[in-house]
């Protein structure tokens, strides 16, 4: 056997997944166009920062793709451990921004370990499912360890507090477990539990601002719903064809907080209209469906699970972020993958897509 690294690079070259890569780059390009517009009032330095982060992300993408994913699988729990450690550390030493302790201040970038954790949990879940076979479908007995894997970081993330990310991980987890033959009865029981616990979480688990956001959704005339009303005004005023590049006056004039991290879709919708929105949605759909196709063709459960996990991550991010911007979900800090500004988000998504590429180029035995 020749040097495994050389083989890895050869595979990357010959079996390069162009569909995945081009779909990803298309969304990145689109995101940059949108960011330029969203940052009109903020000067160019955030834009160039995003460019360098994307370049770094591309490097991560290729690096993750080049390693044999079985090697990644072998150290899956170690990676998970490192991620958990980072979460503990951020709770202790993290930078407080807006009342939440989510970030490490690493000079030019702010690292958000909870973002990274999404991928690490997917890897850990994949490793566990790969190693525990369950022909009869999974019930509570088989779910105990995955629940443990997920709940530890989720609890810590919820403490930061960052309920948006915690909730995203929960959604990814459910999706992955469903794919992994979770019994319907068990699923029903979990859902039941979630419903039962909804009321106490609502009353004791949420912060005032979080409750307000949900209330704003339920009561659009309330003062707290101002933010999402402005987003709706902007999106609606984009009409069918949009107002054109750099013309998103409504959204900018009202200075929505977190415009370029949480509300870039509103800018896009105002400038490019319904048609533009369909293009973005189509782009994401192509990406997600392609990843699910790779999942179906993966040669082992680890690969399949990881792909399903990444697809779920993309899907839920898009659905929740867009849902929030179009006023059907409460305002939560969930990014729009590849389009939102933000280093941790970019690096996480790129690493995740790198994993998918990894599975993709190794799906056929030879």
């Amino acid at each position: 056997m020749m040097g495994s690294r050389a083989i890895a690079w050869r595979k990357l070259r010959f079996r390069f997944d162009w569909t995945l890569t081009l779909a990803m780059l298309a969304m990145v390009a689109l995101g940059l166009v949108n960011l330029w517009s969203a940052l009109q009032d903020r000067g160019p330095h955030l834009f160039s920062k995003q460019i360098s982060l994307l370049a770094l992300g591309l490097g991560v993408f290729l690096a993750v793709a080049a390693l044999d994913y079985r090697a990644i699988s072998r150290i899956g729990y170690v990676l998970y451990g490192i991620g958990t450690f980072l979460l503990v550390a951020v709770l202790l030493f993290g930078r407080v921004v807006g009342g939440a302790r989510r970030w490490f201040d690493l000079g030019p970038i702010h690292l958000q370990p909870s973002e990274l954790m999404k991928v690490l949990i997917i890897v850990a879940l994949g490793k566990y499912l790969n190693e525990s076979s369950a022909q009869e479908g999974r019930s509570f007995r088989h779910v105990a360890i995955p629940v443990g894997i997920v709940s530890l970081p989720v609890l810590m993330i919820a403490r930061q507090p960052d309920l948006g990310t915690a909730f995203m991980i929960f959604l990814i987890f459910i999706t992955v477990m469903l794919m992994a033959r979770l019994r319907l009865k068990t699923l029903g029981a979990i859902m039941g539990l979630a419903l039962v616990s909804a009321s106490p979480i609502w009353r004791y688990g949420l912060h005032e601002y979080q409750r307000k956001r949900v209330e704003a959704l339920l009561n659009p005339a309330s003062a707290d719903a101002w933010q999402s009303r402005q987003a709706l005004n902007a999106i609606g005023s984009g009409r069918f064809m949009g107002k054109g590049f750099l013309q998103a006056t409504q959204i900018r004039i009202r200075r929505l907080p977190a415009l370029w991290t949480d509300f870039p879709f509103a800018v896009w919708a105002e400038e490019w209209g319904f048609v533009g929105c369909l293009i973005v949605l189509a782009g994401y759909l192509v990406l997600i469906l392609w990843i699910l196709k790779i999942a179906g063709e993966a040669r082992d459960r680890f690969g399949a699970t990881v792909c399903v996990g990444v697809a779920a991550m993309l899907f839920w991010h898009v659905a929740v972020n867009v849902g929030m911007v179009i006023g059907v979900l409460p305002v939560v800090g969930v990014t729009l993958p590849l389009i939102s500004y933000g280093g941790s988000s970019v690096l996480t998504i790129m690493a995740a897509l790198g994993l998918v590429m990894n599975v993709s180029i190794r799906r056929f035995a030879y």
Partner: protein
Amino acid sequence: MEITGQDAELPEIRRRSRLFALFAVLIFVLIACRLFYLQVIEGDAFYKLTSDSIIRTVTKPAVRGEIRDRKNRVLARMRPSANVYVLPRELVAESFERVRTALDLAPDEAADLWERVQAERRAPVNEKERERPLSVREDISRNAQAILEEAGADLPGVRLEHAIRRDYPFGAAAAHVLGYMNEISGEELRAKKQENYRAGDLVGRVGIERQLEGYLRGRTGFQKVVVDRRGIPKTNIRELVEGAIKQDPIPGNNVFLTMDMDLQRISERALRNANAGAAVVVDVSTGRILAAVSKPGFDPNEMSGHLSSEAQARILADRFHPLRDKVLTETYFPGSTFKVVTALAALEDKLISPDEHAKCHGYFEIGRRRFKCTKTHGVVALYDAIVQSCNVYFYELGARPGMLDRLARFGTDMGLGAPTGLGLNGEEAGFIATEEWYREQKRLNPKNEGFQVGHALNAAIGQETRVTLLQMAMLYAAIANGGKLWLPQLVERIEAPSGQILEDFPPRVRRELSVTADNLALVRQALVGVVNESKGTAYKARPDDDLEVAGKTGTAQVLRHMGRRGEPITSYEQNDHAWFAGFAPAGNPRIAFAVLVEHGGHGGEVAAPVAMEIAHGYFESVAPADRAAPRVGLPRRRSLRAPVPAPEPAAPLEPTP
């Protein structure tokens, strides 16, 4: 190599991931439906709602409270006026031209305005309120108002706003007490963020306007309107505006002063011959300030709003410092008016008896230094020393060991060396020297000579301690009323616009002087003598009717080597300050006063007539009922007329080092 495709679970995952794909497509379709609804079905409505909508916040200024005097005369009020503003982003060249001609703007003024308009246009769009109007001119003439009003809608970007303006009907009278108002600075705006100030607001600058800003101001209201580019209001304002849409203004509260404008005018008139000076009159039985003049003054009407640069330059260049409140913020040597403190200190500590004599040869020698008296007084007792203002008598007291500290102790007790507590205009504390202070100076600077007995001699005749006019008036009031040192007051009460009393300020005693009634009576008798004894320093200024005034003249030397602000010192500035402090009527004191004419010369010749005119005016026209009082008259001369049986005057002692 692993065997692949053998995992029975893989096909299941494939099957389920197809279901997931289906689910994802479904959700995306739902999202697309929602977007279709928002952008295509409701799109036009949203577009109309939001396109070019400009949120304008129209402020509704609160009416600032009035300031009135004790007889309910209005000293400061609001009156209607019209101001002109431009909206930089909407202003067109023609309307700018019309404004320029209507207001007759000077070329540089117009150029400056145009520059500000351009700067505002370049600035990034501000969040919710889109535009800040720029003020062109306030309080425009009726003529200009008519022209602009007629042009009305033909002047895009120009706004004529009817405003109300601060007006001071008494003009320059009591300007330092009332204060004035002008526009809040950017720095203050940042510092007072919580207090709801907006750019362009006027704030009280000095005097009551500043001290009671919080009471007078009221709260600005606002009304938000949303208009499109043509200025047509939109109806569904709730959709576009965050928070409250309107708020009614709350008018400010009215302040009632203790001042009496009749007396104020009398006092200002009495100072007509002084270039610079001050006078303050207080009620002996309450400590309330009835009049306070600081000359030269300024017209708060002129200072309020936008002061022209020439006017500003003129005021700042005036060598008599019109903006300085000489009643409160300037300190002076009290000169001989301080001798009452020295006398009371000596009497209280039993250094002298009233009958003890000293002999004045016209000077007092200590070591090789000679301290001059005003003239040769011969043999004088305490009474004569005060009446004739003999320095030698007080030099001898000053030479007693520990006298500087004793004077400091009694001076402090009588309210010197500390602000009176009026809290207006950054009131000065004055200064009291002690031996310790001199030792400290020496320690800090070895070249300093440290404490010398000469300092105590100077202190005894009022050339050491520095006082404010108000401190002296309060001190003389305390001597007059038998020892009550009042807290001076300017504000009697504050009323809400409804008439409800918000704050009421009853008279407050600051301290009872720690001197006995007998000693006070001795000093009072001597002060009557100053005005009524033929040898008295203020005898020539005495009122020509039966009003009996008591008081003390003072002629305070100025520090000749010190020009203010390092300017070369003029001969005018080398003249002594003329003082008179006293009370009236002597038999039943009602008012106390302190008068100072800067560089006026001799107190008896310059300041005393001013004080007499004030006292006379007060009992003639302001409060004739208070005039009635038993006559005090002059004491029977026992000791002086008889040949002096020569009880040796207390030998001057060398101070212990």
